[in-house]
């Protein structure tokens, strides 16, 4: 008797799993369909492949999709999308410092943290400001309470405290967030906490809908709890809101009556000469191309700039070591950097990556510093320095 002949091919074919781009056979025990969908590395890879180009290029960060999208110019210039939360489940109040009437990076981060709390539960973010402030919709504010300009002075923590307490009374927010900043946010948060009798969770470094944590014991330990009502947000800990504009609907700011104990306040002129480089806002920097150090010092005095230099001049003793800018000196965050006779070595340029405006004076058109500069002047430093001193004095006397 011959049994029926086995047909291995047909048996195998019978176990073919339908669907999917590759052939798959369920050999052995048939896998139970799991709750999670199967990951398909091939299609992921295909989605991450940047279209065009001769060599295949893969970008795992979603860049391929962005590249595939039409560029900003191709997009129809219709109304930008605005997200509206008409009927929020709760409110998160963020109190902005806005030094000088504009949102600081720390303010944006605070609003970003408030956004994450609100988005986790269908809430909305209200921002309290004094006077009108630009860019709140982009920063992620759904509601804006702006106290009319003039009710709160330049430095007026007592009035700000009263305004925050009135806003809390009005909105009954679930959380109130302050920036933990030396610009006034840290001070304000503590004043509000003392007056309202609530505990402040100060300097929050990580935050989610069910846990907030902050450093304690000199930074050695960390305490975590469910997010309380009053929190202040540490700098550089959260990402600012980045994406869809929010409504930023203006609400009527409540009236408030501060208890004033602090008297008159006068801002003082900055003593630029004694500032550390990291603190300075305007730096006059000299390199190996400067030989007239008396004129350099005089120029610093006349312009009210903090003095700095490249490593060469500090090595030679023209400036003390703590005045060295660069990788092995100070990393500066000044707004303006005025460089005389500096070549712009990579080690030096690393120190000024954060600087907004760079002015360079050099005899060499091809120096790296000239490329980095917003205003470059090809001239002899020794001639320009006295001319600039004379010009500044003349303008001041005029």
């Amino acid at each position, binding site marked *: 008797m011959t049994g029926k002949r086995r047909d291995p091919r047909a048996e195998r074919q019978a176990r073919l799993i339908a669907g999917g781009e590759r052939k798959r056979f369920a050999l052995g025990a048939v896998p139970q369909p799991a709750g999670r969908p199967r990951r398909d590395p091939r299609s992921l890879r295909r989605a991450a492949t940047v279209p065009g180009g001769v060599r295949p290029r893969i*970008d795992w960060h979603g*860049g391929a999709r962005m*590249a595939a999208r039409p560029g900003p110019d191709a997009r129809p210039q219709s109304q930008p999308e605005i997200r509206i939360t008409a009927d929020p489940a709760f409110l998160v109040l963020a109190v902005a410092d806005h030094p000088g009437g504009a949102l600081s990076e720390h303010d944006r981060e605070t609003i970003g943290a408030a956004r994450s709390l609100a988005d986790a539960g269908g809430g909305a973010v209200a921002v309290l400001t004094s006077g009108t402030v630009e860019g709140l919709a982009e920063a992620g504010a759904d509601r804006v309470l702006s106290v009319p300009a003039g009710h709160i002075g330049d430095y007026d923590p007592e009035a700000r405290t009263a305004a925050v307490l009135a806003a809390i009374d009005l909105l009954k927010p679930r959380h109130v967030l302050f920036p933990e900043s*030396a610009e006034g946010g*840290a*001070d304000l948060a503590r004043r509000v906490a*003392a007056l309202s009798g609530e*505990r*402040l969770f*100060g300097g929050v470094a990580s935050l989610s809908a069910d846990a907030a944590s902050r450093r*304690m*014991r*000199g*930074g*050695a*330990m*960390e*305490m*975590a*709890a469910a997010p309380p009502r009053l929190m202040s947000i540490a700098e*550089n800990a*959260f*990402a600012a809101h980045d994406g869809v504009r929010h409504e930023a609907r203006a609400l009527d700011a409540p009236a408030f009556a501060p208890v004033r104990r*602090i*008297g*008159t*306040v*006068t*801002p*003082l002129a*900055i*003593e630029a000469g004694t*500032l550390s480089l990291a*603190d*300075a*806002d305007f730096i006059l920097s000299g390199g190996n191309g400067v030989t007239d150090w008396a004129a350099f010092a005089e120029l610093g005095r006349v*312009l*009210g700039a903090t003095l700095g230099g490249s490593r060469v001049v500090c090595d030679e003793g023209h400036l003390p070591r703590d005045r060295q800018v660069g990788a092995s000196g100070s990393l500066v965050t000044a*707004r*303006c950097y*005025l460089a005389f006779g500096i070549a712009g070595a990579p080690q030096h340029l690393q120190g000024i990556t954060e600087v*907004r*405006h760079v*002015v360079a004076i050099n005899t060499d058109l091809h120096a*790296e510093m000239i*490329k*980095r*500069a*917003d*205003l*470059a*002047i090809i*001239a002899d430093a020794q001639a*320009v320095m006295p001319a*600039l001193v*004379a*010009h*500044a004095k003349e*303008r001041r006397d*005029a």
Partner: protein
Amino acid sequence: MPSVAVLLSVGRHPASGRARRAPLDARALEMAFSLPNAAVHAIHAGNPDEPALRDYLGMGMERLTVLSIPRDGDPVPALTAHLEQLSPDMVLCGSRAEGGEDSGMVPYLIAHALGYAMVADIAAVSASAATATLTQALPRGRRRLIETGLPVVATVNTAAPAPRQSSFGRARRGVIDILAADAPPDTLADQCEIRPWRPRPKRMRLAAAASAADRLKAMTETRSGEGAVMIQPSPEEAARAIYAYLVEKRIIGDGS
């Protein structure tokens, strides 16, 4: 002769974890010494046997008052009651402790309880009979002069003058006056999970570039400027251009 109360806490060395004088509180004490003929009262609420308290005595005080409270007690009620009796013209302390919860709330709670004015982050102080003039330190070296009536609570910033060394002999000779005080236990710590701090990666501001190649470029390349170039101008021309640029970007005010 103004009377100044200085609130002192016990600090914690960041590397070794040993108790030490808290640097900001030491600055506050130094500031109190700098006031001409002020009567300085140094006060600590906590454990009177803490050896680090002697570091403060070594800065040149004969006496230090310690309100003896248990370890997990809230120091604010004890301090408030003591200050109410003492009724100083000025209360100075560091802006932030470094050994406990480090919330920075103590001066605010005291100022609120006693109805004193409150000024944060001062770098210098002078006082007359009825007013104090405080210099407040702000970021980027900015300063603000604040005139306020007495009494006032002020917290001292790192911009204040550095404290003097502690001398061993004075630290040994100084007297610690111990006062018993009540302190309700602080319950916040029980409601929180407390664990060692784990450093987190620093958040980088990623450029929102289209592709990975562009992002890498944005991270690694030195930025190039707007690139307005003047070639061999006369010194006067150059000076005018630089000055105009600085005024335009609001780096300096135009003199006229």
